[in-house]
């Protein structure tokens, strides 16, 4: 295991009498989904490269409760929330970075009323600040030269929390052309996964939402659709397959793009 893949858990760190600068909340997708694990690793590499002292909860992490809440099961949401808050408060966590906009939204906005008060940032915000502070050097060689990248705004990062610029500022560091879809930022079209839709078949209609969003992306002829959410990543990847564009369009998280550009 390279030094860049050093991932201490809170339990391990505490046993060593240490305390992290920030807790990395990996999320269910980032922990279990094979594609999303790659995003998790990219985030880890960046954190290690910048010598950010971080830890994960590992087996002590549990679903934030977002999909349960949005599926109408407030009981289960609050049970999950209280359980997570007990763990986080037990470790006296102050600062959290999440690899998923849904975890980010839930912990930042819905946990405080339940006794969980943390400074929560999304991984694009943290990485952007690392770049801005000069802690992370992104000197993109030829990797992305001449590529067209379009950013798909995750609803729970954009409209839900007004974070539009951090991922775009990151993409501007690459030697690529950032192209905007017609529906972007506050007008960005959903990928179709939110509100617990990820876990069920869509209602009867004439098209899948992810296919529609992929078509919108295809209008700007991108080589890469950049995402900031593991669920958007799944939906857009499926959309690209549905349109048989796998050979032309890649779906990659902003963190992965930066990790590649920084040669990690």
């Amino acid at each position, binding site marked *: 295991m390279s030094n860049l893949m050093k*991932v201490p*858990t809170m339990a391990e760190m505490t046993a060593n009498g240490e305390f992290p600068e920030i807790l990395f909340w*990996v999320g*269910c997708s*980032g*922990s*279990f989904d094979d594609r999303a*694990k790659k995003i*998790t*690793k990219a985030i880890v590499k960046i954190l290690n490269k910048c010598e950010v002292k971080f830890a994960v909860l*590992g*087996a002590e*992490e*549990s*679903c934030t*409760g977002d*999909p*349960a*809440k*949005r*599926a*109408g*099961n*407030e*009981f*289960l949401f*609050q*049970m*999950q929330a*209280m359980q997570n808050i007990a763990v986080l408060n037990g470790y006296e966590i102050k600062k959290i970075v999440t690899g998923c906009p849904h975890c980010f*939204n839930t912990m930042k*906005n*819905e946990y405080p009323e*339940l006794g969980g008060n943390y400074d929560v940032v999304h991984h694009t915000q943290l990485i952007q600040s690392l770049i801005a502070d000069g802690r992370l050097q992104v000197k993109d060689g030829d990797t992305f030269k001449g590529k067209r990248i379009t950013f798909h705004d995750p*609803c*729970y990062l954009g*409209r*839900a*929390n*007004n974070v539009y610029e951090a991922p775009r500022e990151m993409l501007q560091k690459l030697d690529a052309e950032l192209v905007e879809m017609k529906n972007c930022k506050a*007008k960005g*079209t*959903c990928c*179709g996964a*939110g*509100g*617990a*839709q990820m*876990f*069920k078949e*869509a*209602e*009867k*209609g*004439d*098209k899948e*939402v992810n*296919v*529609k*969003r992929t078509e919108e992306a295809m209008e700007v002829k991108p080589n890469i659709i950049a995402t900031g959410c593991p669920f958007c990543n799944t939906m857009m990847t499926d959309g690209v397959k549905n349109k048989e564009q796998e050979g032309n369009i890649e779906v990659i998280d902003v963190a992965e793009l930066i990790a590649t550009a920084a040669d990690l």
Partner: protein
Amino acid sequence: MISIIIFAVLLLVGFGYFAMNVGKIRSNILMGRDVDRSDNKGERLKVMTLIALGQKKMFKRPVPAILHFCLYAAFVITQIELIEIIADGLSGEHRLFRPALGGFYTFMISFIEVLSVLAFIATFIFLARRNLIKVPRLNMKEMKGWPKLDGNLILVMELILITFIFMMNGADEVLYAKGASHAENLGDGSLGFAISQYVGPALFGGMSESTLMMIERIGWWGHIVMVFSFLNYLPFSKHFHIILAFPNTFYSNLKPKGQLTNMESVMKEVKMMMDPDADPYAAPAEPEGEIQRFGAKDVEDLTWKNLLDAYTCTECGRCTDNCPANQTGKLLSPRKIMMDTRDRLDEKGEAIRKHGKGHDDGKSLLNDYITEEELWACTSCNACVEACPVNIDPLSIIMDMRRYLVMEESKVPTELAGMISNIENNGAPWQFSPEDRINWRDEA
């Protein structure tokens, strides 16, 4: 004298009937559950000023925004003239304010006239957009029948209203030039109104004094009768937004759009379950007040803000136009959610006024108006909330109805039931063991 009495009666009936219907709407809105929106008055005032007064969110679509702004500006500024009309009507004078205000009076009426011409043109374009060009969002399923007629009636009323203004001012211009107007003669040859000093002579130039007098009176009375008809039409129409847009934006949700409410009723129970010191054998505390159902089945389970939203909706359809579920052919239309909520609230309010509080008409918002299929099609993406020019929040109604379905009736799509039991058992929406959560660390 007789005309003063008729006018005073018209005024009383006009305002009285309006006040009565506003009272009904108010009591309907207050059927909703409480939600605290009394904080941050300064911020709220700012939001209201920008969104309602300044129509900031309308300008995301410049063409309808400019047309709408013409109508809006004309409507607001015309209220100044209305003050004079009321003063004239009650005093029996004619153009009471002109001698004192002089040049400013001419400027004000001219300003109103210019805006009225712009509004007249805009109204025609609006009629065309609804009926000729058939803008898609104005011609969807839920817009058939009364909503379509409602939209057209408002526009026609506006055309008539403006026509009366120009009959009144135009004929008066011609009369004034002849020295026959009832307005006090200030020794000038014309009233000097920007539009009617030309339109008046062009339309009514050759007419006799008595015909002109009649046209002027028809314009004057027609205008005020239309104003009161319009006012009293509002509580029965989607057009009520011209008033409710202000309180509705003032009481906007100021929190991040992604933040759903944490249900307090659930919070108490969960806290007790999680408390190691809680006595499991203790008798449950007496519930304070009425026991509320979880989530929303009918209108009274929603908050008063949801209900205010419903009356504020003017059915423009920007929410539905931006809804990814609707765009991909699903049944869900956020606009229909708002229209259903309002229609059910009207129905329920009427039934309660007739049969007394606690009356059950055997119907509910869920099932009789909104189906489960609509509710489960939502991705909670907030596009509808973002799109609404007056900060209506259809998403919170959808989520509260899902809560009712799941927590009171255990009605949940099969796959979601699987996801929920996975979270219950494994702490993840998929069937993975919590112990495996960190396996990725050791995978190459």
